């Protein structure tokens, strides 16, 4: 329970930061002020300035936007395609279709995800959109597997049998009876994939294959600062902590949600 609250607080904090950045940031995140470069944290610049004199707090706030947008869309792609595929595979379990869907999933799983993401962005050009697609594709098999596994056990339930006796087809049963009962699991998996998406986006930006300048991104900020971190540690620390705390927050929230939703794990939570 404590984890859930802490995780949700951290998550909400970063989402708020991203939302506020649409209407207000302390400074223009793209304004260069070379005279003010590498200033340590102060009252004027809470998180200090980077090597081009940009305000780091503003950049982190705008960068949160990129991270969250990439992760949300990537998870959306994963849920939007993976869940129907998983439901379909479970509904037709044992059929050729099931085999085709699940073996294609295995195929995608077989490749290291980040490597393929780098390949996709290298081929189609580095941009936030390509990063989203690359990360999204790897979310599809994750959701397809989780959904199929949970759906398979639901298909053996008597209420599904009762629905079949009522003449309902596989599609209708999947939507009416299976999907609502796997939502719990999807919420939990979604939060975890969300945090992995943020990490992946940071990693891609770090190697220069994510969002392109001047759009700020946490991974890019880390990459920019790596040669200077002995000189001005704060320009590495703040984006680093931003990534760390967001991912930590999302993971805690995901774990907490699972405990909350799963009555079998709820006992110790009193």
């Amino acid at each position, binding site marked *: 329970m404590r984890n859930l609250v802490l995780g949700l607080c951290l998550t909400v904090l970063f989402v708020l930061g991203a939302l506020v950045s649409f209407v207000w940031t302390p400074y223009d995140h793209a304004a260069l002020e070379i005279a003010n470069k590498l200033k340590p944290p102060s009252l004027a610049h809470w998180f200090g300035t980077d090597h081009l004199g940009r305000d780091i707090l503003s950049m982190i706030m705008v960068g949160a936007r990129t991270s969250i947008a990439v992760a949300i869309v990537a998870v959306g792609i994963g849920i939007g395609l993976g869940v129907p595929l998983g439901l379909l595979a479970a509904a037709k379990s044992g059929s050729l279709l099931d085999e085709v869907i699940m073996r294609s999933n295995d195929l995608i799983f077989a490749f290291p995800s980040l490597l393929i993401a780098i390949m996709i962005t290298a081929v189609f050009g580095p941009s936030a959109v390509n990063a989203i697609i690359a990360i999204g594709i790897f979310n599809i098999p994750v959701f397809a597997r989780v959904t199929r596994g949970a759906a398979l056990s639901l298909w053996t*339930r*008597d209420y599904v*049998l*009762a629905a079949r*006796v*009522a003449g309902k087809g596989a599609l209708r049963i999947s939507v009416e009876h299976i999907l609502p*009962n796997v939502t719990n699991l999807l919420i939990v998996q979604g939060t975890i994939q969300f945090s992995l998406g943020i990490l992946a986006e940071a990693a891609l930006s770090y190697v220069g294959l994510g969002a392109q300048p001047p759009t700020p991104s946490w991974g890019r900020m880390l990459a920019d600062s790596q040669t200077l971190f002995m000189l001005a540690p704060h320009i590495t620390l703040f984006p680093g902590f931003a990534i760390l705390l967001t991912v930590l927050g999302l993971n805690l929230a995901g774990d907490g949600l699972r405990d909350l939703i799963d009555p079998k794990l709820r006992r110790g939570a009193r």
Partner: protein
Amino acid sequence: MSLLRIDNLDLDIYGTPILKGVSLEIGQGEIHGIIGESGSGKSMTALSVMQLLPEGSQCRGAVHLDGVSVLEADEAALCAMRGDAVGMVFQEPMTALNPLQTIGAQVAETILIHQDVSRSEALARAAKVLRRCELPPEQFPLSRYPHELSGGQRQRVVIAMAIALRPKLLIADEPTTALDVTTQADILRLIQQLVREDGMSVMFITHDLAVVTGLADRISIMRHGAVVEQGGGASLHHKMQHPYTKSLFAASSHQPERAVPAPDAPLLKVEGLVRSYPAGRRSLFGTAKRVLAVDDVSFEIQKGESVGLVGESGCGKSTLTRAILGLEATQAGRIYLGGDEVLSGGQASADVRRKMQVVFQDPYGSFNPRHKVDRLVSEPFHLLGRKATAAEIDEALVSVGLTPADKHKYIHEFSGGQRQRIAIARALIIKPELIILDEAVSALDVSIRAQILDLLADLSERYGLTYLFISHDLSVVRSITDRVLVMKQGRIVDQGPSEALFSNPQHPYTKSLIEAVPVLPGA
């Protein structure tokens, strides 16, 4: 000198009182039956003796096992006691064994934990114990895994684990509830025999009065966490005083009142039905063998008739049900319902389907937990291609003894018996002609079961329903059916009018089934 003595035991879990002043004594070599319906606290009493209570539990009172106060003992002493002085047998043999360990290793483990012996010696002793439990190592080598054994054989392994160290007390928590009648009879005989040989004491927990009256020396009847009556086994039902004990005995041998229907026209007609499954392949290129689950089955059910289908688990009852419901393709044979063929072109039409509905065994798994009762109950209206009206939902709920206000609730707000009423309402709502009751009362307590049986008898009269009553419980089938079909290994081996079949069984298999049923004295 009693072996186990429980004095005035109170148990709270997170402040909720579970047991209230439970006192009982079990003497050396005595079998003590504890009977009660679900939630009466019988399992918690057993767990208190073992001190294996769930988190948040608080015990007051005294539990003395062989002179040692269990409530005051520390965890190390308790660990030494569990398995050594007290053995336990659980209800579900499927989950009580570790599927990844051989049976020999699991029995030997108990010995290794408590005694300083070598592994090979422990295994040798495990083999001996398994032989005592009628699993001779020549037929059942120690290297077998639980999935290679049947339910009854697994329960023997569980018993072997419990008695491996010759405990003074054996706690058996519904050890035969998950088993077929014939297997149940074997296991009960085995427990009795072991008790006689070892002079063990047994705490035998069950909800089934008939099982325990023939077995136990003394009986305690529990209700709402308290012992309402205690007495000597077979004599208890003669001398019973407490109204609850009386009602429990009455409910166990309850016979709903039914009018005998006049034979009409055949409603359901099954002709030469065959259903087979592909079995696992033995080799990569070999053709897969097929397992015959239903083997050339033919029968008829008249309109308004109530027919029982009995058989042990794995005999093909459930497969037959699914075939009749048009849920599975069949390999040969035809099924007609009211003159129409159920499966035409591999698909059951809505027209045929609307004439039959089904009620399942498990009141907890039969409903989507995320829908409200009105939506659950009106699901079969899909077959009519329209939504149920509020009046129709209300009528269905009222007819099974619930109120119209219940339709706005979720299923978790109802007890097992109420859920089974809702399941019947769901089957009833589109006014089908045939209702298949697949072990519909097996999961219910005796008093609730009696109510549901009355309800079913009443409904069949009121709506002219035809029942196909599938059950492994012969006494229930006898009380509610006109005719019985006995199924074994996919075939119908015997059939006849219920009374005649039960009072004067002809077929040897029917005889063995009926002889295996424990009977209440005087019933």
